């Protein structure tokens, strides 16, 4: 039987079995959403071909919107579909009873719902989109090119940010979205393990309530404590004559944050993701039927 904590051979077998179950339970939905790049491109083109006699490719903005919406749908619906049954005794206690350690079940669950599903979705969707754009020239730039090559131009239009432009640009690079993607998947995985019914809806509702509550709690505190400093700093940054050194001497902490937004973003996401992983682990440990 080996270790009660981690046995690689057992984990490999369990992960394979868990993945097979995921394909069986969510495979068709996953396939429908990840191939939307092709199906919607064809449907859109065919619609215009039959109505106006010409083939019109979908605009980039429409393709981006569709990618984001379908990606979010997969991200928030898959945990409940794959692991939602764990809270339902009538669906069986196989997950709890199978002789595999809690750590192995936990790692397999997190790998599948937070890494494999979202990133394979992204890979398939973007690859198919690239193929569509390769075959149909009217398509323009592929989503891959749009996401990974373009720099967010709107930053140049915000004058207050001229000093820290590069730092702001750095947090908009697609690589930094990865931990946010994992975070969303973890939130909905936790929701799937906590709520007994309407898991996705209740998770969304809870997130809205939590964010409103936190805003109501912290906005007045932050405003009272730091409003003057923020205003002064913003005024100084908008002044083209002011030197970076002067700002950094006056506001060393804020300046450090603004100069290292990517690090701050990654650290805060890592902290939140760590907490979410801990809660998922705790929920698995305390799961009863």
């Amino acid at each position, binding site marked *: *039987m080996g270790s009660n904590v981690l046995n690689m051979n057992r984990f490999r077998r369990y992960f394979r*079995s868990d993945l*097979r179950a995921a394909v*069986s339970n969510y495979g068709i939905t996953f396939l429908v959403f990840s191939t939307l790049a092709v199906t919607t491109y064809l449907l859109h083109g065919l619609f215009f071909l039959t109505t106006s006699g010409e083939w019109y490719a979908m605009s980039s903005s429409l393709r981006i919107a569709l990618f984001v919406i379908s990606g979010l749908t997969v991200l928030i619906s898959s945990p409940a579909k794959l692991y939602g049954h764990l809270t339902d*005794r009538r669906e*069986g206690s196989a997950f709890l009873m199978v*002789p595999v350690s809690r750590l192995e079940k936990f790692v397999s669950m997190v790998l599948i719902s937070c890494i494999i599903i979202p990133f394979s979705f992204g890979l398939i969707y973007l690859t198919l989109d690239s193929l569509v754009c390769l075959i149909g020239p009217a398509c323009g730039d592929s989503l891959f090119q749009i996401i990974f090559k373009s720099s967010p131009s709107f930053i140049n239009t915000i004058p207050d940010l001229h000093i820290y432009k590069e730092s702001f640009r750095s947090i908009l690079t697609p690589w930094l979205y990865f931990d946010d993607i994992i975070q969303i998947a973890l939130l909905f995985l936790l929701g799937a393990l906590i709520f007994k019914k309407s898991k996705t809806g209740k998770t969304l509702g809870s997130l809205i309530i939590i964010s409103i509550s936190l805003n109501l709690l912290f906005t007045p505190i932050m405003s009272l404590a730091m409003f003057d400093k923020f205003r002064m700093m913003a005024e100084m940054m908008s002044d083209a004559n002011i030197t970076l050194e002067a700002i950094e001497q006056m506001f060393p902490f804020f300046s450090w944050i603004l100069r290292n937004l990517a690090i701050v973003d990654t650290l805060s996401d890592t902290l939140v993701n760590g907490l979410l992983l801990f809660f998922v682990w705790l929920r698995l440990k305390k799961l*009863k*039927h």
Partner: protein
Amino acid sequence: MIKIRDLRFSYGNNVVLKDISMELQEGRIYGLLGENGVGKTTLLTLLAGLKEPGAGSIEIDGQKPFDRTPSFLSQIYYLPDEVPAIRMKAIDFAMDRGQFWVNFDPDKFKEIAGVLETDTSMRMDQMSYGQLRKTYISFALACNTRYLFMDEPTNGLDIPSKSQFRKAMSKYTSDESTLLISTHQARELEAIIDPIIILDRKDVLLNATLSEITKKIYFDYSTATSPEALYSELIPGGCIQVLVNKSGEESKVNLEALFNAVHRHKELIKKMFNDEIA
């Protein structure tokens, strides 16, 4: 060996099990009897590690079930009263799940499924309830675990299947295995269960082997009724009476009559059998 000490469990304010203590020996098929709501399923799920005791302790071969360690889980199988219809062929399900139980025997699974007349090439979500249950029973027995807990295993089985189930239980459980079968259909399992545990609300009324029971209690199948009977019931061709065994004569246990007698004379029965233990 299963050791239960002062076990307590409640759903909110509703106390289901209160200070339950008992020991279950190896190599026996225990029948767990009790009225609705006395906590039979709760006890089974506690033994399987699906629930955490509120107080007291459960030890199975020195391990706490709720820790749900792989070494513990590989020694037990729990067959619940409701089983899920998975979108898989029965044989694929067995091969996929069985690989985690070290003693799982795929040939035995196919053999038992054959005895229970279950088509293992059929998808489980397309099976009738009885077929599905028989698939799970085949799987449970093929796991060859030291401890097997079954909750109402004959529910949903037709008459021939119940007989096949008894045959399978007798043939395919090893001498070292301990089985605990919760049932309301005592008569159907009479031939295979021994010892008998009768659970009452918050108490164990009886935990004794058939031979211990017949030493203390006499089952009279004659036509003459006795005023000393703990319980009597008319049956075709006469009546069955449950009496205190004063002569030491052996008799055939009737589980339903025993159950009713125990429920009518709880304190007397507890005293009779607890004195024996003491």
